[in-house]
């Protein structure tokens, strides 16, 4: 199963490598979001610094939506879904592979965005360990839940509008917990951050388990 997942993730990442949508479109979009926030809130410098963690995660969330849409648009085209079903790959492995590829793309974007926050928003970093763990768990949680909902909406005509409506409320706890934990990491009160990390871990575990089981039926339906 793990081998299948690696094959799948390798394929998705290779598509991104060849098409460069992530680097040429999603990453600039993320930076643009940061700049627009900075532009809108700059007159009150204090607001920007205080809101940095929240803005960072809102930007990550937008990018995650784009990445998920993209990951399933690729499969929706030209009978690729049939080929995937015929391929003999374990659906759980397809889920893990797709989620893994999305997580890898998001991790890259978070590095770019994180640098942007430090430069544009004038924040310094106090708890690097907490921040790294937060980002890792939040990214896994986002990609797992996103892959489940991406597959759910994939075969539908209205997927572009339906996906955000379905996904955003579900990942609200991730946004909240990741923001609080990152705030603690940036502010130096790391003790306040760990309970939120626990929540992020639980979210990631639950949606991983759910996706492993639910992806088979999701891939089956819709022809």
């Amino acid at each position, binding site marked *: 199963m793990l081998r299948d997942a690696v094959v799948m993730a390798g394929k998705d990442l290779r598509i991104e490598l060849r098409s460069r949508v992530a680097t040429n479109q999603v990453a600039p979009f993320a930076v643009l979001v940061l700049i627009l926030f900075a532009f809108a809130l700059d007159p009150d410098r204090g607001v920007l610094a205080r809101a940095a963690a929240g803005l960072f995660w809102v930007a990550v969330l937008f990018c995650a939506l784009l990445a998920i849409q993209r990951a399933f648009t690729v499969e929706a085209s030209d009978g690729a879904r049939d080929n995937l079903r015929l391929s003999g790959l374990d659906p759980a492995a397809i889920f893990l592979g797709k989620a893994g590829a999305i997580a890898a793309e998001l991790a890259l974007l978070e590095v770019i965005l994180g640098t942007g926050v430090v430069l544009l928003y004038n924040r310094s970093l106090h708890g690097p360990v907490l921040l790294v763990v937060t980002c890792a768990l939040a990214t896994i949680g986002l990609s797992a839940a996103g892959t489940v*909902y991406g597959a*759910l909406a994939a075969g539908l005509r209205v997927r572009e509008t339906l996906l955000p*409506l379905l996904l955003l*409320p579900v990942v609200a*706890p991730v946004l909240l*917990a990741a923001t609080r934990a990152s705030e603690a990491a940036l502010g130096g009160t790391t003790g306040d951050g760990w309970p939120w990390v626990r*929540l992020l871990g639980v979210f990631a575990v*639950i949606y991983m388990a759910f996706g492993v089981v*639910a992806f088979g039926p999701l891939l089956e339906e*819709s022809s």
Partner: protein
Amino acid sequence: MRSGIGTRLLGTAAVASLALLAVMALVITPQDVNQLDAVRFLYIHVPLATLMYVAFGVTAVASVLYLWPRYRARKWDLLAGASAEIGVVVTGLVLVTGSIWGRTTWGVYWTWDARLTTTAVLFVLFLGYLALRRVGGDIDARAKRNAIAALAAAIDMPIVHKSVEWWRTLHQKSSILDEETFMHPHIHGSMYWTVLLGIGAFLLLFSWLLVNRYRLAKLEDRLEDEGLERAIAERRAEADALTGAP
């Protein structure tokens, strides 16, 4: 399928108990020592909130039953949808009554405390679920998709709840379901009984609405099924026309 005597009795009971509730809530029960007349929101807000959990609970259980191969039947999907529809309306009403009550007692319409945030997220989650239900496709595929979406939303609820419960709340704690004080309720005398009456009355109303909505969904479904048999016959006739006599 006309509505039976049972359903009509249910409807009558719901209307009667709601009328009784109105009299109790608006006339008979006294003012609260702190909240004065604003306390009367208690008799509609708390029952509605209870109903909200019941409605989404029914949706979640019906979805599990649909996904369980041994119990799989289209009726569970129809029941889940019917219950979620009522649940979303009820949640909307919970938010509205809560806001008005909040304005008169706390002094604000809305604040991002735990209880309010959780309810708002619940509202949006199931709004998305209803939007998904309206998307077409193969019937069984659609039902399976709906059930998975309902479960994904349902298992998110404890997480949302916990994530916001780490906040203290402006919202008061539960007055009814507190086992330590069940026999010595936080709510005084006739006010307590009126809240219980309210919960009962709204549960009757919910059952009545659910029965009717479910019956309607079932009729729509049967209409499609009858069409199917005709469609197979037509399809065969199409072949006969091409190949001569049958």
